Every structure is written in structure tokens, then in C-alpha cells.
């Protein structure tokens, strides 16, 4: 994604001025002082806190957006993109239930390293995300559907965006012939599966993105209902989806995807991201995810990851959650290394003959944090 230039970031178009939002006085949303002379000092003053300048009005969505869009803002207050509650809660799981928000140093570390992934209304509907320095995406024109490249994958870029668009093709260490997601090739943008109501929430303060709410969990079978047809001719689906041992769809239909080691907070497990394909036990089985086996990826967490923040909370219950967790790859293909049986002796050879490579075992954990990783991933190891 090419960054916006300094002028482009703040340029306002006539199209915006003609739009409904353009009928509102600039100062109604942004404050500031419009009656200053054209000097550098005055420019700074016009955009200063003293003049009540507000760069990102939708950070206070109830105040600035709610008068017209209260149906959305009243719910979005509790949405995970806005609250980042998922981060806090996952931290608590590994920190013996302690909330990092109660420790000023931990809270400061979080605000510096993690809070930029918080999203407001504007970061999807008028500017690029602040994590990539923001800037008006369409010269201040508001848009209902976020841009896949400049909004969604501006944040969700390092895994989902690269995999979905097939950007690992030709990269060192990645398998030859890796392709973009079939849905991407069909022209589907993120919003085809991830609808507005999933993003805006329903007003419930969820604690994890793997919420047990069918409205918010895009399912392959929402479109591919034939997979569940008991009369299907597809023996793979009969055995592995409808059978007694259920596989997550991605196990057969994903390509190699990315795992991570080092986290950008500066401490903990080190090393570059790397391509993986690992099948683990479903450690979080519920009505929405009743598979027995899932694809897992390594996440960049270690017992000392947050030590540099200098707070008093440490990850005393680090092993309460796995470090190989749900992968949800976004690089689906009908024919993959697992499903392509060309030249093989029997229908399951491509997969079953590669169990040593595919199944997550204790040999796959990081040796620098061996004990912690072995304990944390015990529920996920297949053998």
C-alpha cells in the first residue's frame, strides 16, 4: 500500500463539500480556529488543543457521529475493534487474572505498543487506520464500505492481507505455486464475509473474537451448504465433515500460511515469521466450532514478552492458553497439496502420508521456552 503524501493526507475535495457530511461546518466536528492568518505559527495554533482542535472526531463517536448514526455508535462502543477487549482479556488469561489496565506502567506499555490497533468509525469510513499514519482516503468523502487494501489489510496485513492476495508467491521459504485465495480471485472483498454488523457489534461487550455468536462468525457452509448434504457424492466431506471426527474446512483447503515469533514490544521469543502448516486438536471446541481438528499457527508470545514494560504484572499463568492457536488462514483453494490426488495410490495419500509434517507435536515448540511451550500447547498436540 503506497502511503499518502503529506498534502494528500489532509486534502479535501469538492465532492466532499457537496456531500451530506460536507454540509456540516468543519469546526462542528474538528473544533480549531478557522479565523487565523496564514502563518506557520497560526497554522499550529489553529490546530491546537487550546483551540479545541479534534483530529479524529470519531474517537468520540457518541458525540460526533451519534446524533445521526446512533444505531451504530451505541453498539460500536462495545465492539472489539473499538474496545480492544480481546487483547486485555487474553492478557488476563496468562497473567493470573490481573488486568494490565490497573498497572500504570503496563497500561503505558500497552498504549505505546498495542493500542494503535484500536479502530474508530473514521478509520474504516473516512481515513486510513492510524497504525499506518492515517490520512484522508478519499479526500474526506465518507464511504460505507471500507477499502480492502487501504482500510482492512492496512491493519490485517501481515498475515491475512498477504495470504489473501497471494503475496507470498516467489518469496524465499514459501512453497512454489502458492496462490491467492480463490475468493480473492473471484473478486470478493473482505466485506463479502465480514459484514458491517460483525464489525459494529450488537452492543454486547465481547471478550474474544472467537465469540459464540453465529451472526458474527462467517462460516464456509453459509455459502457452501452442499458440504453438509447427507446425500453428497463427496466422500471427503462425508468422512471428514459429516463423520465422527470432524476437520475444520481449512485443513484440506488452505495452503501454507504464516506463523510468528517475535513480537514488536521488544522482548520475548525472537525470530522472523515463517511459513507453516500444522494441524492441532481443537482446544476450544464449542457449538460454532465443533471440529475435532483445526489448523494452528504460532503466535508471538513468551513468558517474558512484556518484561520491558517494567510493570508489576507478569505472566504467571502463561500456560493457561496455547501459543499454537487458531490459524484461520485466508488462502483457500479447492485443490491444495492435501486435496490434489494426482498420481497418488489412494485418495488420502497426499495428506495421510504426510502426518509427520502436518501434525503438531512437542517437537514443533520453541526450544528457548521449552517447558512453557510444552505445557501451554498440551491440549493442542495431536501426538
Amino acid at each position, binding site marked *: *500500500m*503506497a*502511503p*499518502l*503524501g*503529506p*498534502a494528500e*493526507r*489532509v*486534502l*479535501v*475535495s*469538492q465532492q466532499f*463539500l457537496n456531500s451530506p457530511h460536507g454540509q456540516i461546518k*468543519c*469546526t462542528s466536528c*474538528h473544533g*480549531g480556529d*478557522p*479565523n*487565523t*492568518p*496564514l*502563518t*506557520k505559527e497560526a*497554522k499550529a495554533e489553529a490546530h491546537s488543543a487550546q483551540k479545541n482542535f479534534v483530529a479524529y472526531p470519531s474517537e468520540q463517536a457518541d458525540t460526533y457521529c451519534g446524533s445521526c448514526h446512533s444505531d451504530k455508535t451505541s453498539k460500536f462502543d462495545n465492539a472489539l475493534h473499538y474496545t480492544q477487549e480481546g487483547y486485555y482479556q487474553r492478557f488476563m488469561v496468562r497473567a493470573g487474572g490481573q488486568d494490565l489496565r490497573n498497572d500504570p506502567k503496563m497500561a503505558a506499555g500497552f498504549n505505546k505498543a498495542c493500542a*494503535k*490497533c484500536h479502530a474508530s468509525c473514521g478509520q474504516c469510513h473516512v481515513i*486510513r*487506520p492510524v*497504525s*499506518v*499514519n492515517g*490520512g484522508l482516503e478519499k479526500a*474526506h468523502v465518507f464511504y460505507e464500505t471500507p477499502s480492502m487494501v487501504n482500510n482492512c*489489510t*492496512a*491493519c*490485517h*496485513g*501481515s*498475515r*491475512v*492481507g498477504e495470504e489473501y492476495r497471494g503475496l507470498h508467491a516467489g518469496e524465499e521459504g514459501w512453497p512454489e505455486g502458492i496462490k491467492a485465495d480463490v475468493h480473492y480471485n473471484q473478486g470478493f472483498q473482505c466485506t463479502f464475509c465480514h459484514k458491517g454488523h460483525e464489525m459494529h457489534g450488537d452492543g454486547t461487550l465481547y471478550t474474544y473474537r472467537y465469540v459464540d455468536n453465529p451472526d458474527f462468525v462467517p462460516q464456509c457452509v453459509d455459502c457452501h451448504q452442499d458440504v453438509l448434504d447427507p446425500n453428497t457424492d463427496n466422500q471427503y466431506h462425508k468422512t471428514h465433515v459429516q463423520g465422527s471426527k470432524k476437520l475444520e474446512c481449512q485443513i484440506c483447503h488452505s495452503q501454507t500460511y504464516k506463523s*510468528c515469533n517475535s513480537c514488536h514490544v521488544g522482548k520475548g521469543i525472537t525470530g522472523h515469521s515463517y511459513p507453516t502448516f500444522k494441524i492441532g486438536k481443537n482446544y476450544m471446541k464449542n457449538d460454532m466450532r465443533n471440529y475435532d481438528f483445526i489448523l494452528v499457527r504460532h503466535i508471538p508470545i513468551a513468558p517474558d514478552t512484556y518484561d520491558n514494560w517494567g510493570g508489576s504484572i507478569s505472566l504467571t499463568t502463561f500456560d493457561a492458553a496455547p501459543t499454537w492457536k487458531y490459524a484461520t488462514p485466508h488462502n483457500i483453494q479447492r485443490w491444495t497439496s492435501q486435496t490434489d490426488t494426482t498420481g497418488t495410490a489412494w485418495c488420502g495419500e497426499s495428506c495421510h502420508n504426510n502426518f509427520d509434517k502436518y501434525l503438531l507435536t512437542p517437537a514443533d515448540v520453541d526450544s528457548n521456552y521449552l517447558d512453557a511451550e510444552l505445557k501451554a500447547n498440551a491440549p493442542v498436540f495431536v501426538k
Partner: protein
Amino acid sequence: MKRIVYLIPFLIAFILMVSCQEKKSDIAEKEGLYEVTNQSSCVGCHTNKALLEQVAEPLEGGGGEAGEG
């Protein structure tokens, strides 16, 4: 005639007020910082790309993709 005589001081005051007022574009010219623009309002600046190119400051980092997911 009397009415006109009474109005003269007001007219002079009005003319002086208008002519002595320093225009915002004059300030810009004097400072030599920005191109002259007719408006110093938000819209005047933010719709003028040439002006913004002179005054907008680049941010550190410069953008690109980020994120965990």
C-alpha cells in the same frame, strides 16, 4: 443637505476601517511562507493542494501495512 453632512464622519470612519484592515493574504505574502490564497478558512487551505504541499509536514514512518492479523 444636513443629513449628508451628518453622514460624512461615519463614511470617513467606514472607509478608514476597511482600507486599514490588514488582509490575511497580505500577511501570507509578507511572511513569504505560503502562496496567496483568498481564504484563510479551513476549506480555503484544505482544498488547495498546492498550498498544502508547501505547509503539510511529513509524518514519521510514512505508512505501509501493519498489524498482527
